[in-house]
């Protein structure tokens, strides 16, 4: 090959790199090469040093949930044809990915009750930020209002994305771990582009959205509804029925493992009339030369590779494989399975909070599968966490991990269909011991 190129050595191919910058082979401070067996050993040991949800009882939520994932989902996304394909820029030889994306978009639109969905954002937090940017483009207004009961990580990222652009971002403080629609409405004005709420909210609170929708209508404000667990809409009112203009949240619950923070998937759905302002890739239906139905990436004139600095978003790589995971999961669940996942997730929390011992209190108001438990002090709470962990229970997330200004005596607790009745008995027993 070198002869054909007309050079003597491979290093001659790097002659255009100034000699000063050439590294001596082997000089990097990296470990020696490992053979495959060595890598497996290294990772197996590292994995063994962690406690994981597979052999514990996981009551952790806050945007990431331990739902059941049928084996088929991982099988499908392990297939090399899905796993090792690129973005479907040559549609004739990517119809598999494209049809799966079209099915994904359809099912996400139906599940969220919205008209259209895109082919994913990185995660819920960046998705919420993109929703705010999109609302600013549509309304040509710059002010963004967020309820303080939206997941703090979604708010942090959104605030940060908006911080370098003109316009005000307002956060309405949250009291009693609940959403107060009146307080949110009071923060709206005629310059507001959108209001962002979460449903159910970060603390699991479920509330009447209708007054907020009416207030938005009166002032031409877009309603953005964020969500952290899409599976709940198998039973609960989806954002579309609540009147959302944009629905954005996490699809991790739909067949994606928790994976220590990713890869997850951001779902993004909106009204059909807004599609040309939407961020990210979308797949659309069309015909081929022979008139057969087929699918392509479309509306690319919104995107960075065409529009460059005027694009609706800078997003290029998205969470494509997770779309296929979501689509596979949804096809196995169907309406009935999803409704059962939602009901069981909610039922487990109701059972948990229904019989709490004295000394611990659950937040008031209607809750879906997540709530806040409050203890007398940090010491009691942390004693409970330690006792529970000894019994293989991850009992909750100290709330100050999300909301640093809160008193360090609260616990964010979440349940899914993976929690059995016996797990809740054990949870109660650990509580009782900690509260003695």
């Amino acid at each position, binding site marked *: 090959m070198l002869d054909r190129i007309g050079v003597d050595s491979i290093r001659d191919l790097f002659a255009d*790199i*100034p000699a000063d910058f*050439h590294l001596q082979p082997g000089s*990097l*401070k*990296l470990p020696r*090469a490992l053979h495959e067996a060595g890598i497996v050993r290294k*990772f197996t040991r590292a*994995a063994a*040093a*962690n406690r994981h*949800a597979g052999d514990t009882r996981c009551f952790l939520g806050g*945007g990431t949930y331990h739902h059941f994932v049928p084996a088929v989902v991982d099988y499908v996304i392990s297939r090399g044809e899905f796993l090792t*394909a*690129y*973005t479907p820029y040559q549609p004739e*030889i990517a119809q*598999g990915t494209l*049809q799966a994306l079209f099915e994904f978009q359809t*099912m996400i*639109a*139906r599940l969220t009750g919205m*008209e259209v969905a895109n082919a994913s954002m*990185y995660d819920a937090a960046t998705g919420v930020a993109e929703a705010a940017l999109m609302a600013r483009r549509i309304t040509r207004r710059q002010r963004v209002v967020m309820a303080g009961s939206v997941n703090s990580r979604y708010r*942090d*990222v959104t605030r*940060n994305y908006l911080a*370098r652009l003109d316009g005000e971002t307002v956060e309405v403080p949250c009291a009693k771990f609940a959403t107060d629609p009146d307080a949110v409405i009071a923060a709206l004005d005629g310059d507001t582009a959108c209001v962002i709420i979460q449903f159910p909210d970060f603390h699991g609170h479920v509330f009447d959205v209708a007054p907020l929708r009416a207030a938005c209508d009166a002032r031409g404000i877009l309603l953005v509804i964020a969500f952290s667990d899409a599976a709940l*809409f198998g039973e609960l*009112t989806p954002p579309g029925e609540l009147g959302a203009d944009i629905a954005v949240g996490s699809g991790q619950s739909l067949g994606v*493992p*928790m994976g*220590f*923070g*990713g890869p997850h998937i951001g779902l993004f759905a909106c009204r059909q009339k807004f599609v040309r302002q939407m961020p990210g890739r979308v*797949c*659309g*239906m*069309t*015909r*081929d*030369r022979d008139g057969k139905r087929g699918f392509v990436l479309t509306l*690319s004139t919104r995107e*960075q590779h065409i529009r460059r*600095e005027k694009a609706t*978003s*800078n997003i290029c790589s998205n*969470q*494509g*494989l997770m779309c296929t995971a979501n689509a596979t999961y949804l*096809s196995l669940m*169907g309406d009935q399975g999803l409704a059962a996942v939602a*009901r*069981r997730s909610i*039922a487990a929390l109701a059972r948990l909070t229904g019989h709490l011992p004295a000394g611990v209190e659950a937040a008031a108001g*209607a809750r879906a599968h997540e709530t806040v438990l409050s203890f007398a002090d940090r010491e009691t709470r942390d004693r409970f966490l330690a006792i529970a962990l000894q019994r293989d229970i991850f009992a909750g997330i100290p709330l100050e991990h999300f909301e*640093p200004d809160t008193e360090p005596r609260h616990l964010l607790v979440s349940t899914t*269909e*993976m929690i*059995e009745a016996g797990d809740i008995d054990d949870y109660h027993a650990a509580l009782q011991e900690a509260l003695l």
Partner: protein
Amino acid sequence: MTDDYSGVSGMQHEEALLFEHAHEAATPISLPGIDAELPDALNGFRRSRQAGIPGLSEPESVRHFVRLSQWNHSIETGFYPLGSCTMKYNPRVNEQLARLPGLAQLHPDQPEESVQGVLELLYELQQWLGEITGLAHVTLTPAAGAHGELAGIMMIRAYHDARGDRRRRTVLVPDSAHGTNPASAALAGMQTIEIKSAANGRIDLDELRSRLNDEVAALMLTNPNTTGMFESDIAEICRLVHEAGGLVYGDGANLNALVGVARPGDMGIDCLHINVHKTFSTPHGGGGPGTGPVAVNDTLAPFLPVPKLVRENNTIRIVHRDERSIGSIFGSIGQTGVLLRATAYIAAFGRDALHRIAEDAVLNANYILARLKDAYHVPFPGLCKHECLLTDEKQERHGVKTLDIAKRLIDLGFHPMTVYFPLIVHGAMLIEPTESESRETIDRFCDAMLEIARQCEAGDTEALHQAPLMPIRRRLDETLAARKPVLVWPED
């Protein structure tokens, strides 16, 4: 028609949409947990009607998605020479490792002491990426290359602001750059100015000098650039930008040409994102997930996003708050599953063999260039790095365009190269073979390209205009799709 086209056999199935499957599963899927009705308090919050998600039996669902998968070209099916995309083989062991329950089943908010194993692997990757790039401080958080660009430009802006230099709001972007560069700069609230490339496809130093002033925050630069050529003036470019008070952002999309051979940090680049789904072989998944860690020098280190991984004694801690940080850009510490695959990939090469990645990638690309340079127009002659750029100038005389060549390659059993990018040449064809491919595969690809060129010369172009004929679908009408977008299947 050659008989080695990989996607065609007598058993090529049509497959209906999920919504057209008449047969829903007789019994719904069996689930764990507590079966109960919705609590009374939630009765007013039921959805008014079912969503319309079809529930298939397990075998029906498997068959549906397996059939769909068979309509895809992939790295595991065949050659995939997409320029600037680095479609290398994705080692299977990495898939196995990322799925270990002790890694895949971790909640991101577990107590730190219960996740030290995974934190150790991530911290190690952070150190390795710092060493490989020559930029010691690394964030693993950005979810993709473009997300890394955003984080990088935010850091550069924060650096200037911290010095009280708030006028620096301009980012210079060469006209050959990926579209994400200007889009990311705009998202960080910056103005972009395009730098015209010189006649040799590289940065024009005079043009650069004329654009530098006290409003320039940064130059965004891809090196090797998107024509596949190394910017040999890199030291001078960095010196000029630094002298004018700006910083140099490196787009690491083409790091596969340099890995183990030379380090962007040594050349004067201040900040670089790494597409681990390119250089470090994590699978592309039909569009993602990627991940775009950013490596920076001491100048920018204080501004890295949170959360940060920090070693204290023998423990790795996750630091969520830091006053000088640009703040939070993602909902978690990062796409751990992707990052772990990259860790495993680097571990397999280690210091002994990492340079062979770049060496073999560059060898393969130059070999393709040598074989094709007479049959196709080469806009910028000379050595290439990990990819080579051709155009359709010679074929256009025969009425054949880059698009026809690309589609004909499909019929001959290959995924096309990147087409019509970079934008600075007409009818671009950017070919990146990567180090994974054997000489035999590369020769067969070159043979196919030469056959196409011969057909053009001979005026035998009908097959080119008709292509592709072999896949499940022929050329698709993109105008129709965009004019009246149908993004979801209508309900019955």
